[in-house]
């Protein structure tokens, strides 16, 4: 993995904490900085994704991409935070229901097939 150098200004409190963790965990400071940034970044991404999803600015797939997680995990994240979609607009609702019966003949034919199969097996 290619690493890039960045410079940051951090206050004394933060640097002291990192030094303390480094001393106790016997891990070099750079590793702790990297881990802290990664964990913090994941949290920031999650908060942003939830906010944007709730505001209907992004989809579930986009939210998952932003968090670098699977869509199913993003669904779980939304569930854990109690976030639900806003209701459909009347126009969206009308369009969804306008076409609802388009597959009906196909499903009814399948139902007939199932019944025929059941009847055949009952007569055996």
């Amino acid at each position, binding site marked *: 993995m290619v690493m890039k150098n960045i410079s940051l200004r951090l206050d004394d409190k933060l640097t002291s904490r990192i030094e303390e963790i480094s001393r106790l965990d016997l891990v070099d400071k750079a590793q702790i900085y990297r881990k802290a940034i990664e964990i913090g970044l994941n949290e920031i991404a999650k908060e942003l994704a939830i906010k944007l999803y709730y505001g209907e600015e992004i989809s579930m797939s986009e939210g998952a991409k932003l968090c670098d997680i699977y869509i199913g995990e993003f669904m779980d994240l*939304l569930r854990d935070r109690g976030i*639900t979609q806003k209701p459909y607009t009347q126009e969206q609702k009308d369009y969804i229901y306008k076409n609802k019966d388009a*597959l*009906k003949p*196909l499903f009814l034919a399948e139902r007939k097939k199932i019944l025929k199969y059941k009847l055949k097996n009952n007569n055996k």
Partner: protein
Amino acid sequence: MEIVVSDSSTLILLSKSKLIYFIKPVLKIYIPEIVYTEVIKGKEKGHKDAYEIEDMINHNEIIIKNPNQKEVIELQKMYKIDAGELYAIALAKELNKKILIDDKKGINACNHLNIKLYTCLSLLELLFETKIISKIDAQESLKQLELHGRYSKIKITDIEKKIV
């Protein structure tokens, strides 16, 4: 068997709610490669739905097909939607087939392009109406859709009332 196109989140929800097993004998699902990549990412952390979908792909019950790139570019100019949804809509448009989609921006684009669509909930409703799915199975699927699909309470209550 009728061909329908699906986007990633709807396909995952169909698997989580088990509705995919009820539509399998009737519908052949087509997905673009980008949707496949998004769904299969679930295997990294052992998500059951990702394995189930992969299994269906291996058994040719779900087909991977990319839309014409020209179609994708055209739609990209018109709509600000995620790549997965955009490719799925482009494929449905190109094949002149219905699409399974739950994303609101995607629904708006389909409305504009006059592409017939089903959401997981409208599909569940139709499956129950045509008695392909029993009341108990429909209620269980609805429970899973409520849990994972993050549908508004209004939408869930609306379907609940119909499954009686």
